[in-house]
């Protein structure tokens, strides 16, 4: 009997907005001028927060910080596609997602300054605490999505992670669970091509990350991660599909980390300056600005105003964090259990003297 082909696959890449700010009108998602302006504002705010955080870290006012520079489109546009009732499972490089979801800026400062109170997501939002062990939050998103399905809620669970995370077993187990249970999960990978010093070619021998979803029975799409419209469109469709019972999706946002891995890293040790320069030319913020100028959505006045508002919001947030001050030391005893264990209670008494 002859061998026959029993499966074949196709992996797509979506691009809408080019580097000069020209959009393919046939592919444009339905976004109003006001919505596009809002996305732009969030991108500028995210970038301004990022720059401030780096500066504050250098001054010794914040701890180690992970910059999102270059990844603003992937973060802001995908989060903008979500609703407040959706659940977000972020990694540690997600400032733009948090800001777009409405996470208070002063709490982000608290988090990065080593104050755990910044991790307490305010009511009305479902943003999980930042996940530091790479990829370990993906099964949580799968499980949250399974719960949404069981409870009959029209919600989606969005998990954010990097290219490095796709090498963890957790990634594969989460994908498999979500696929088997057709859970309303949206997996969003920011493939910034580096995991600290390890290049993408050392994470996988596969041609794309997107294709990994196919083995788990759902779609994987690669998008130009520096293209707000492609990211938004892919995320919106995936979220709608999830909410209408279509199961999970995977979106690989192909992008680039323009900064060091964190403030504790020196990327000149391992990656060519030439590569960084090339990607600076593909700046997602600039690309959207060019588009908006062409479409008459942005002029010098709007740009100036948006920048000023962002700086003001950041100033206020930082002052608020400073005004609140450091956490009281006994905060560390408050959340181990709902009620302290007898041993812990005894230790707290000793601690308080």
């Amino acid at each position: 009997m002859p061998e026959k082909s029993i499966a074949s696959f196709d992996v797509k890449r979506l691009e809408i907005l080019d580097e000069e700010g020209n959009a393919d009108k046939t592919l444009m998602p339905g976004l109003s001028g006001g919505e596009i302006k809002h996305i732009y504002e969030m991108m500028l705010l995210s970038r301004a927060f990022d720059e401030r955080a780096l500066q504050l870290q250098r001054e010794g006012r914040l701890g180690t910080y992970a910059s999102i520079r270059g990844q603003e489109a992937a973060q802001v546009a995908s989060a903008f596609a979500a609703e407040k009732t959706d659940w977000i499972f972020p990694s540690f490089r997600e400032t733009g997602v948090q800001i777009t979801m409405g996470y208070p800026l002063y709490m982000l400062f608290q988090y990065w300054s080593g104050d755990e109170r910044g991790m307490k997501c305010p009511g009305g939002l479902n943003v999980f605490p930042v996940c530091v062990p790479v990829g370990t939050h993906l099964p949580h998103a799968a499980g949250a999505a399974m719960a949404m399905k069981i409870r009959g809620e029209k919600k989606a669970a969005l998990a954010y992670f990097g290219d490095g995370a796709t090498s963890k077993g957790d990634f594969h187990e989460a994908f498999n669970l979500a696929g088997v249970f057709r859970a309303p999960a949206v997996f969003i990978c920011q493939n910034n091509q580096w995991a600290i010093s390890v290049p993408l070619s050392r994470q996988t021998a596969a041609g794309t990350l997107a294709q990994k979803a196919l083995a788990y029975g759902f779609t994987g799409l690669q998008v130009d991660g520096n293209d707000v419209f492609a990211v938004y469109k892919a995320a919106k469709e995936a979220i709608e599909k999830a909410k209408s019972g279509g199961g999970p999706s995977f979106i690989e946002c192909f992008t680039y980390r323009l900064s060091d891995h964190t403030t504790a890293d020196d990327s000149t040790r391992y990656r060519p300056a030439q590569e960084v320069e090339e990607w600076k030319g593909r700046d997602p913020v600039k690309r959207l600005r060019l588009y908006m100028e062409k479409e008459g959505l942005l002029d010098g006045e709007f740009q100036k105003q948006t920048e000023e508002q962002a700086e003001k919001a950041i100033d206020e947030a930082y002052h608020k964090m400073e005004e609140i001050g450091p956490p009281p030391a006994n905060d560390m005893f408050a959340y181990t259990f709902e009620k302290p264990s007898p041993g812990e209670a005894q230790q707290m008494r000793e601690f308080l003297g």
Partner: protein
Amino acid sequence: MAAVNMVQALNMALRQEMEKDPSVVILGEDVGRDGGVFRVTEGLFEKFGGERIMDTPLSETGIVGAAIGMSACGLLPVVEIQFMGFIYGAFDQIVNHAARLRSRSRGRFTCPLVIRTPYGAGIKALEIHSESTEALFAHIQGLKVAVPSGPYVAKGLLLSAIRDPDPVIFLEPARLYRMIKEDVPEEQYTIPLGRARKAREGKAVTLISWGSMLQRTMKAANGFDADVIDLMSLSPWDAEMVLSSVRKTGRAVIVQEAPKTCGFASEVAATIAEDAIAYLRGPVLRVAAYDVVLPFSKLEDYYMPGIERIKNKIEEAMRY
């Protein structure tokens, strides 16, 4: 002989052993071109190439599991797990395989690998980078656990770990990496696994510690006639040295960075209670972190046992 820090001492040990023994290989995240995030493997990629210094995918289970296969198959892998907080993905491999391969194959296959990992608080790191869970590993039969307390010990202990025929978890207190410099001989020397050392001689009280707490214990010991023991190995550990010291002093204070409940100090205390109770003047005392989830950096100093807390416990012991 040059004064070097612990990063340099570890680097020297790795380089020299790799020169001597072609079966030694290193694998982990960022250990190659970047030289490790703490630079312990700096320069080794350039010297030994990518076949022996392997930058791996971000895959702790895979790294440790593969190292088990390599070690069974003639190599001597030294794994770097970037921080101890990320080792748990590989716990299955460590506990169910590395620790048991000798036993499961009745000695036919063995697992001479080393897993190095930085650990401990006091470096103002992000979440999950600062815990001390050495007791989890010391509790597993078939694993050896070593913890250097400074550059000199680090070099000799790592060489023993690499040459040991069984799996060794080698825990490097990150706070010490660049804190202390010591004279470390260029020549190779070993410090045996399973043995403690006297960091100071005294007659009135025995202070037992390891890793990052040794420095603080030594400082707190000032003004007391204290015998200070640096355990260096937690499994197996040198109960003999501890017992003979306690039989001499009649007092024992154990200092650990980890939370109190079920930490390694509990094992030391129980052993003293079993085998030296007749010599004790008072209770065996522990100084440890609180039984809470390790707080973020702003509260870290309240959490970690400091010199004052250690001093107070020594005074308490001296009242008996």
